[in-house]
Protein backbone atom coordinates (compact mmCIF):
# COMPACT_ATOMS: atom_id res chain seq x y z
CA UNK A 1 0.00 0.00 0.00
CA UNK A 2 1.24 3.49 -0.84
CA UNK A 3 2.63 5.44 2.06
CA UNK A 4 0.60 8.56 2.80
CA UNK A 5 1.92 12.03 2.12
CA UNK A 6 1.84 14.92 4.56
CA UNK A 7 1.74 18.67 4.72
CA UNK A 8 4.84 19.73 6.62
CA UNK A 9 4.40 23.51 6.64
CA UNK A 10 2.10 26.17 5.26
CA UNK A 11 2.01 29.95 4.89
CA UNK A 12 -0.81 32.43 4.44
CA UNK A 13 -0.92 36.05 3.34
CA UNK A 14 -4.25 37.83 3.62
CA UNK A 15 -5.68 41.10 4.98
CA UNK A 16 -2.30 42.57 5.87
CA UNK A 17 -1.30 39.46 7.82
CA UNK A 18 1.38 36.86 7.15
CA UNK A 19 1.47 33.58 9.04
CA UNK A 20 3.49 30.39 8.95
CA UNK A 21 1.97 27.18 10.30
CA UNK A 22 -0.80 29.31 11.83
CA UNK A 23 1.56 31.63 13.70
CA UNK A 24 1.47 35.30 12.71
CA UNK A 25 4.89 36.63 11.73
CA UNK A 26 3.83 40.01 10.36
CA UNK A 27 0.77 42.22 10.53
CA UNK A 28 -0.03 45.75 9.46
CA UNK A 29 -3.16 47.84 9.09
CA UNK A 30 -1.86 49.15 5.77
CA UNK A 31 -4.81 48.86 3.40
CA UNK A 32 -2.98 49.18 0.09
CA UNK A 33 -1.34 46.02 -1.22
CA UNK A 34 1.65 47.86 -2.66
CA UNK A 35 2.54 49.42 0.71
CA UNK A 36 1.72 46.27 2.68
CA UNK A 37 3.91 43.94 0.65
CA UNK A 38 6.82 46.39 0.69
CA UNK A 39 6.59 46.73 4.46
CA UNK A 40 6.38 42.98 4.87
CA UNK A 41 9.37 42.39 2.58
CA UNK A 42 11.51 44.87 4.51
CA UNK A 43 10.32 43.39 7.81
CA UNK A 44 11.60 39.98 6.77
CA UNK A 45 15.01 41.51 5.99
CA UNK A 46 15.30 39.72 2.68
CA UNK A 47 18.23 40.78 0.52
CA UNK A 48 16.81 40.43 -3.00
CA UNK A 49 16.49 43.69 -4.93
CA UNK A 50 14.74 42.00 -7.88
CA UNK A 51 11.65 41.82 -5.66
CA UNK A 52 10.97 45.49 -6.38
CA UNK A 53 10.84 44.83 -10.10
CA UNK A 54 8.20 42.11 -9.82
CA UNK A 55 4.51 42.60 -10.46
CA UNK A 56 2.11 42.36 -7.53
CA UNK A 57 1.15 38.72 -8.13
CA UNK A 58 4.80 37.69 -8.14
CA UNK A 59 5.51 39.74 -5.01
CA UNK A 60 2.66 37.96 -3.25
CA UNK A 61 3.76 34.49 -4.35
CA UNK A 62 7.43 35.24 -3.73
CA UNK A 63 6.87 36.35 -0.15
CA UNK A 64 4.51 33.47 0.67
CA UNK A 65 7.17 31.05 -0.58
CA UNK A 66 10.01 32.90 1.10
CA UNK A 67 8.58 32.69 4.61
CA UNK A 68 7.72 29.04 4.05
CA UNK A 69 11.00 27.89 2.53
CA UNK A 70 13.60 30.00 4.31
CA UNK A 71 14.58 27.13 6.59
CA UNK A 72 14.31 24.42 3.95
CA UNK A 73 17.48 22.81 2.71
CA UNK A 74 18.00 21.00 -0.57
CA UNK A 75 15.30 22.84 -2.54
CA UNK A 76 16.37 21.67 -5.99
CA UNK A 77 13.82 18.84 -6.07
CA UNK A 78 10.82 20.82 -4.89
CA UNK A 79 8.11 21.07 -7.57
CA UNK A 80 5.60 23.89 -7.83
CA UNK A 81 1.85 23.43 -8.32
CA UNK A 82 0.16 26.81 -8.07
CA UNK A 83 -3.29 28.07 -8.94
CA UNK A 84 -5.54 31.11 -8.84
CA UNK A 85 -8.66 32.68 -10.31
CA UNK A 86 -7.47 35.88 -11.95
CA UNK A 87 -4.33 34.56 -13.65
CA UNK A 88 -2.20 37.65 -14.42
CA UNK A 89 -5.20 39.92 -15.04
CA UNK A 90 -3.96 42.59 -12.61
CA UNK A 91 -0.81 43.08 -14.67
CA UNK A 92 -2.63 42.52 -17.98
CA UNK A 93 -4.86 45.52 -17.17
CA UNK A 94 -1.84 47.67 -16.32
CA UNK A 95 -0.13 46.69 -19.54
CA UNK A 96 -3.28 47.37 -21.55
CA UNK A 97 -3.30 50.86 -20.02
CA UNK A 98 0.13 51.53 -21.54
CA UNK A 99 -1.03 50.68 -25.08
CA UNK A 100 -4.62 51.92 -24.98
CA UNK A 101 -3.96 55.44 -26.23
CA UNK A 102 -2.40 55.67 -29.68
CA UNK A 103 -1.10 59.15 -28.87
CA UNK A 104 0.57 57.89 -25.72
CA UNK A 105 1.69 54.43 -26.82
CA UNK A 106 4.59 53.30 -24.65
CA UNK A 107 4.34 49.57 -23.91
CA UNK A 108 6.54 48.68 -20.97
CA UNK A 109 8.77 45.61 -21.48
CA UNK A 110 9.17 45.24 -17.71
CA UNK A 111 5.38 45.05 -17.25
CA UNK A 112 4.88 42.84 -20.31
CA UNK A 113 7.13 40.06 -18.98
CA UNK A 114 4.68 39.56 -16.09
CA UNK A 115 1.57 39.14 -18.27
CA UNK A 116 1.51 35.39 -17.58
CA UNK A 117 0.40 33.89 -14.27
CA UNK A 118 3.13 31.25 -14.16
CA UNK A 119 5.88 33.88 -14.07
CA UNK A 120 5.33 34.13 -10.31
CA UNK A 121 6.29 30.45 -10.06
CA UNK A 122 9.37 31.18 -12.12
CA UNK A 123 10.39 33.89 -9.66
CA UNK A 124 10.06 31.40 -6.79
CA UNK A 125 12.02 28.80 -8.74
CA UNK A 126 14.86 31.20 -9.52
CA UNK A 127 15.07 32.42 -5.94
CA UNK A 128 15.26 28.93 -4.44
CA UNK A 129 17.16 27.14 -7.19
CA UNK A 130 14.34 24.72 -7.95
CA UNK A 131 14.84 22.49 -10.96
CA UNK A 132 11.75 20.32 -10.78
CA UNK A 133 8.28 20.47 -12.38
CA UNK A 134 6.30 23.71 -12.40
CA UNK A 135 2.65 24.16 -13.28
CA UNK A 136 0.04 26.88 -12.80
CA UNK A 137 -3.71 26.19 -12.99
CA UNK A 138 -6.40 28.84 -13.40
CA UNK A 139 -9.91 28.08 -12.10
CA UNK A 140 -12.78 29.95 -10.48
CA UNK A 141 -12.16 28.21 -7.18
CA UNK A 142 -9.30 26.24 -5.64
CA UNK A 143 -9.56 22.82 -7.29
CA UNK A 144 -8.46 20.57 -4.45
CA UNK A 145 -8.84 17.32 -6.39
CA UNK A 146 -6.63 18.42 -9.29
CA UNK A 147 -3.97 19.96 -7.08
CA UNK A 148 -3.99 16.93 -4.75
CA UNK A 149 -3.67 14.46 -7.62
CA UNK A 150 -0.95 16.44 -9.35
CA UNK A 151 1.17 16.81 -6.21
CA UNK A 152 0.71 13.16 -5.28
CA UNK A 153 1.69 12.03 -8.79
CA UNK A 154 4.86 14.15 -8.78
CA UNK A 155 6.11 12.61 -5.54
CA UNK A 156 4.96 9.03 -6.18
CA UNK A 157 6.50 9.01 -9.65
CA UNK A 158 9.77 10.35 -8.15
CA UNK A 159 9.63 13.51 -10.25
CA UNK A 160 9.96 15.58 -7.07
CA UNK A 161 10.85 15.02 -3.42
CA UNK A 162 8.48 17.72 -2.20
CA UNK A 163 5.80 19.85 -3.83
CA UNK A 164 5.01 23.45 -2.99
CA UNK A 165 1.31 23.83 -3.73
CA UNK A 166 -1.34 26.43 -3.25
CA UNK A 167 -3.50 29.36 -4.19
CA UNK A 168 -2.03 32.73 -5.12
CA UNK A 169 -4.81 35.11 -6.04
CA UNK A 170 -4.50 38.82 -6.67
CA UNK A 171 -6.53 41.40 -8.53
CA UNK A 172 -6.21 45.07 -7.66
CA UNK A 173 -6.52 45.32 -3.87
CA UNK A 174 -7.93 41.82 -3.34
CA UNK A 175 -5.29 39.27 -2.52
CA UNK A 176 -4.82 35.94 -0.81
CA UNK A 177 -1.97 33.46 -0.83
CA UNK A 178 -1.96 30.05 0.81
CA UNK A 179 1.04 27.83 0.12
CA UNK A 180 1.75 24.44 1.63
CA UNK A 181 4.55 21.94 1.31
CA UNK A 182 3.70 18.31 0.56
CA UNK A 183 6.25 15.63 1.42
CA UNK A 184 6.66 12.22 3.00
CA UNK A 185 6.91 13.61 6.52
CA UNK A 186 4.75 16.18 8.20
CA UNK A 187 2.06 16.97 10.70
CA UNK A 188 -1.17 16.96 8.70
CA UNK A 189 -2.21 14.19 6.35
CA UNK A 190 -2.28 15.33 2.73
CA UNK A 191 -5.93 14.90 1.67
CA UNK A 192 -8.33 16.93 -0.47
CA UNK A 193 -10.27 17.77 2.68
CA UNK A 194 -7.17 19.08 4.47
CA UNK A 195 -6.04 21.29 1.61
CA UNK A 196 -9.56 22.57 0.96
CA UNK A 197 -9.83 23.68 4.59
CA UNK A 198 -6.36 25.18 4.50
CA UNK A 199 -6.96 27.24 1.38
CA UNK A 200 -10.61 28.19 1.78
CA UNK A 201 -10.62 29.08 5.50
Amino acid at each position, binding site marked *: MDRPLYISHYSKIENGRISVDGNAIFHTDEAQFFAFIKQAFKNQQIDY*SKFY*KMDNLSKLAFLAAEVLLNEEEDKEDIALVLSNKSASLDTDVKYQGSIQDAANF*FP*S*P*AVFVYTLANICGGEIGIRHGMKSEHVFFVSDEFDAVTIFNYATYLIKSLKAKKVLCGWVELFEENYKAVLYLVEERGTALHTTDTINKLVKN
Partner: protein
Amino acid sequence: MEELKEELKGKIIEVLNLEDISVADIDDSDALFGDGLGLDSIDALELIVLLDKEYGIKLSDPKQGKSIFESVNTMADYIAKNRTK
Protein backbone atom coordinates in the same frame (compact mmCIF):
# COMPACT_ATOMS: atom_id res chain seq x y z
CA MET B 1 23.91 69.26 -18.65
CA GLU B 2 24.26 68.68 -14.89
CA GLU B 3 20.53 69.26 -14.47
CA LEU B 4 19.78 66.73 -17.21
CA LYS B 5 22.04 64.14 -15.55
CA GLU B 6 20.29 64.53 -12.20
CA GLU B 7 16.88 64.34 -13.88
CA LEU B 8 17.99 61.24 -15.78
CA LYS B 9 19.18 59.48 -12.64
CA GLY B 10 15.80 60.11 -11.00
CA LYS B 11 13.95 58.75 -14.03
CA ILE B 12 16.19 55.66 -14.23
CA ILE B 13 15.54 54.89 -10.56
CA GLU B 14 11.80 55.40 -11.06
CA VAL B 15 11.25 53.39 -14.24
CA LEU B 16 13.59 50.55 -13.25
CA ASN B 17 12.27 50.34 -9.66
CA LEU B 18 15.73 50.63 -8.14
CA GLU B 19 14.29 50.75 -4.65
CA ASP B 20 17.51 50.78 -2.65
CA ILE B 21 19.35 53.31 -4.81
CA SER B 22 19.17 57.10 -4.60
CA VAL B 23 20.27 59.76 -7.10
CA ALA B 24 23.33 60.42 -4.92
CA ASP B 25 24.37 56.76 -5.19
CA ILE B 26 24.80 56.94 -8.97
CA ASP B 27 28.04 58.44 -10.22
CA ASP B 28 27.88 60.06 -13.66
CA SER B 29 30.46 57.62 -14.98
CA ASP B 30 29.19 54.45 -13.25
CA ALA B 31 28.58 51.55 -15.63
CA LEU B 32 24.82 51.02 -15.90
CA PHE B 33 25.22 47.37 -16.85
CA GLY B 34 27.60 44.68 -15.62
CA ASP B 35 29.46 45.60 -12.46
CA GLY B 36 27.86 49.03 -12.08
CA LEU B 37 24.14 49.23 -11.39
CA GLY B 38 23.77 45.64 -12.54
CA LEU B 39 20.91 46.29 -14.93
CA ASP B 40 19.61 43.47 -17.13
CA SER B 41 18.26 43.07 -20.66
CA ILE B 42 14.69 44.02 -19.71
CA ASP B 43 16.07 47.17 -18.07
CA ALA B 44 17.81 47.97 -21.36
CA LEU B 45 14.46 47.79 -23.16
CA GLU B 46 12.91 50.05 -20.51
CA LEU B 47 15.67 52.59 -21.10
CA ILE B 48 14.85 52.59 -24.81
CA VAL B 49 11.19 53.30 -23.91
CA LEU B 50 12.38 56.04 -21.52
CA LEU B 51 14.28 57.80 -24.30
CA ASP B 52 11.21 57.69 -26.53
CA LYS B 53 8.64 58.67 -23.91
CA GLU B 54 10.52 61.41 -22.09
CA TYR B 55 12.81 62.83 -24.78
CA GLY B 56 11.19 61.87 -28.07
CA ILE B 57 14.18 59.82 -29.20
CA LYS B 58 13.51 56.63 -31.16
CA LEU B 59 16.46 54.29 -31.37
CA SER B 60 16.28 52.83 -34.86
CA ASP B 61 19.38 50.68 -34.40
CA PRO B 62 19.38 48.67 -31.15
CA LYS B 63 23.15 48.22 -31.49
CA GLN B 64 23.50 51.92 -30.68
CA GLY B 65 22.25 51.11 -27.18
CA LYS B 66 25.53 49.61 -26.03
CA SER B 67 27.41 52.89 -26.28
CA ILE B 68 24.49 55.15 -25.38
CA PHE B 69 23.64 53.25 -22.20
CA GLU B 70 27.20 52.92 -21.00
CA SER B 71 26.71 55.46 -18.20
CA VAL B 72 24.63 58.49 -17.19
CA ASN B 73 27.29 60.62 -18.89
CA THR B 74 26.85 58.90 -22.26
CA MET B 75 23.07 58.85 -21.99
CA ALA B 76 22.85 62.53 -21.11
CA ASP B 77 25.21 63.42 -23.92
CA TYR B 78 23.12 61.48 -26.45
CA ILE B 79 19.85 62.96 -25.16
CA ALA B 80 21.21 66.53 -25.28
CA LYS B 81 22.18 66.07 -28.93
CA ASN B 82 19.11 64.20 -30.14
CA ARG B 83 16.10 65.12 -28.00
CA THR B 84 12.94 66.30 -29.76
CA LYS B 85 11.06 67.25 -26.60
